[in-house]
């Protein structure tokens, strides 16, 4: 559905995006992760024909992305950074403009998307008087009004409260699973992406440093055993003597990444009890996406 081939954007000496090659399959929810300034928005703008790449190409549905390829945009809905609307126009008028510019024949499309995005009570309110969350809903409504087969969303969760984030997540999941809509989504709420993306791409300093599916992610996310005892200094010595390499965390707990300890934490408990350093806490912790992401970019930096 989306394919980029060594997509590159340079600004004088700064390389914003470097030889980015990614592939998004039909019906997939692709999470695009990166720190601020990593190149996410530049990539999205190149996918939408707003920025011309210096090198490489982007293809959507097999067609080369070009600003004047208007047929291409019929099937695409998008939201880039913070959504804004014409402040002096009402929610309905803003959506009516999009309906007409997208040649949607169904005159009821505006009311339908207003209902879907729960904007009914604000339909006749001017955009300038909307709360941040409702302005965001209007932005998402503009992106979805034509039932696109591809949604490109840049940080769509910005401005939403937790309930709004949940609703959007459910809506996007439903669109992908039941309507076959492909979703390319960037977000700084990294844990949020892990809840519903099928695949994840991590971009850092303009380079795609890792691309993986959600099952791979589970395997790659590190597990570790967290331990607290009545005498941690003594416990550390015992663990060393038994071939483990424990480390002390800033919260003065003991961390062990050895697979033997993670798979059989009861052996560690037994070892501690036998050596009179009774455990007060023993917990196998799985690394979340955020930690994995930070570890990945740190490794890349090193």
């Amino acid at each position, binding site marked *: 559905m989306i394919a980029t081939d060594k997509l590159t954007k340079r600004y004088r000496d700064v390389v914003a995006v470097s030889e980015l090659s990614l592939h998004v399959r039909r019906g997939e929810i692709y999470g695009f992760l990166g720190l601020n300034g990593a190149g996410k928005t530049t990539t999205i703008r190149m996918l939408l024909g*707003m920025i011309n790449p210096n090198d490489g190409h982007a293809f959507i549905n097999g067609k080369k992305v070009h600003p*004047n390829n*208007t*047929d291409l945009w019929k099937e695409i809905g998008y939201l880039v950074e913070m959504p804004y609307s*014409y402040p002096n*126009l009402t929610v309905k*008028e803003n959506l009516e*403009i999009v309906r007409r*510019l997208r040649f949607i024949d169904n005159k009821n499309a505006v009311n339908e998307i207003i209902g879907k995005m729960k904007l009914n009570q604000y339909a006749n309110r001017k955009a300038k008087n909307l709360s941040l969350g409702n302005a965001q809903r209007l932005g998402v409504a503009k992106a979805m009004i034509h039932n696109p087969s591809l949604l490109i969303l840049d940080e769509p969760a910005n401005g939403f409260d937790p309930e709004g984030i949940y609703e959007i997540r459910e809506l996007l999941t439903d669109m992908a699973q039941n309507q076959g809509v492909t979703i390319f989504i960037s977000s700084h709420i990294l844990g949020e992406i892990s809840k519903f993306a099928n695949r994840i791409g991590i971009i850092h300093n303009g380079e795609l440093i890792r691309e993986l599916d959600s099952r791979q992610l589970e395997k790659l996310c590190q597990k570790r055993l967290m331990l607290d005892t009545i005498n941690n200094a003594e416990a550390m010595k015992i663990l060393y003597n038994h071939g483990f390499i424990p480390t002390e965390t800033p919260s003065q707990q003991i961390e062990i990444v050895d697979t033997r300890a993670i798979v059989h934490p009861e052996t560690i408990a037994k070892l501690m009890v036998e050596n009179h350093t009774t455990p007060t806490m023993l917990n196998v912790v799985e690394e979340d996406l955020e930690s994995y992401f930070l570890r990945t970019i740190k490794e890349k930096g090193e």
Partner: protein
Amino acid sequence: MKTLAVTLWAETLKVRKSKILWLTMLFFAFVAMMMGMIVFLQQHPELTQKLGLIGMKANMVGMGEPNWKNYMMLLTQGLAGIGLIGFGFITSWVFGREYTDHTLKDLLALPVTRTSIVIAKMIVIAVWSAILSAIFLAAALLFGKIAGLTGWSSDLFFSLLYQFAMIALFSILLCTPVAFFASYSCGFLLPIGIVIITMMMANFSGLLGLTAYFPWAISGLFCVAPGTEITIQPVSYIILLTTSLIGLAGTLAWWSYADQHAK
């Protein structure tokens, strides 16, 4: 054609729902009223002292004998001035607002071409400017009538109408470079600055005897009294049209090919 129709509809709605439309109409009617007041004060010199600065200004204008002929000359000069400024301002707004309201990015990946959006904006600016010119003319004639000017004739009126139409047309044609600078600078300030600078340079070109060759001064040549040494030259039309086309081509190219980083 369908593309242009929908973009035109969208651009018209944006303007219809803005306060700027009504404010510019009021402004043009107000300037016409001020011109009517000037001619009224010239007819009633005893009032000028009582009105202080306004009265002094009325005396300074020096339009000659207060009759329809001289008043109409004053009106053409008025339109040449506020046309360039007023139409330039609305052009800055029509293009610049997409950047300051952060709505531009929503116009860039649609089934309608970016060219059609630019053309629709230009058409809206032209129609809006024409309406403002008509309001200015109608209001000025009304105030002239109220002032009780003498010497009206239909020939005089049609001659004024022609001059008005040409000045308005020339001023509208010069909106395209303003549109380019609004797009290039992503806002209002630079294009409005350009409008002010071109106005100053238009006056300066008069001092150098280059009025017929400086695009922003050419419309002023329709305001000069018959028999004046400086007249519009055939090359003036070419210069003005070329400037307009360069502005249009620049705006279309900017929208079509430049990197769009607007938030």
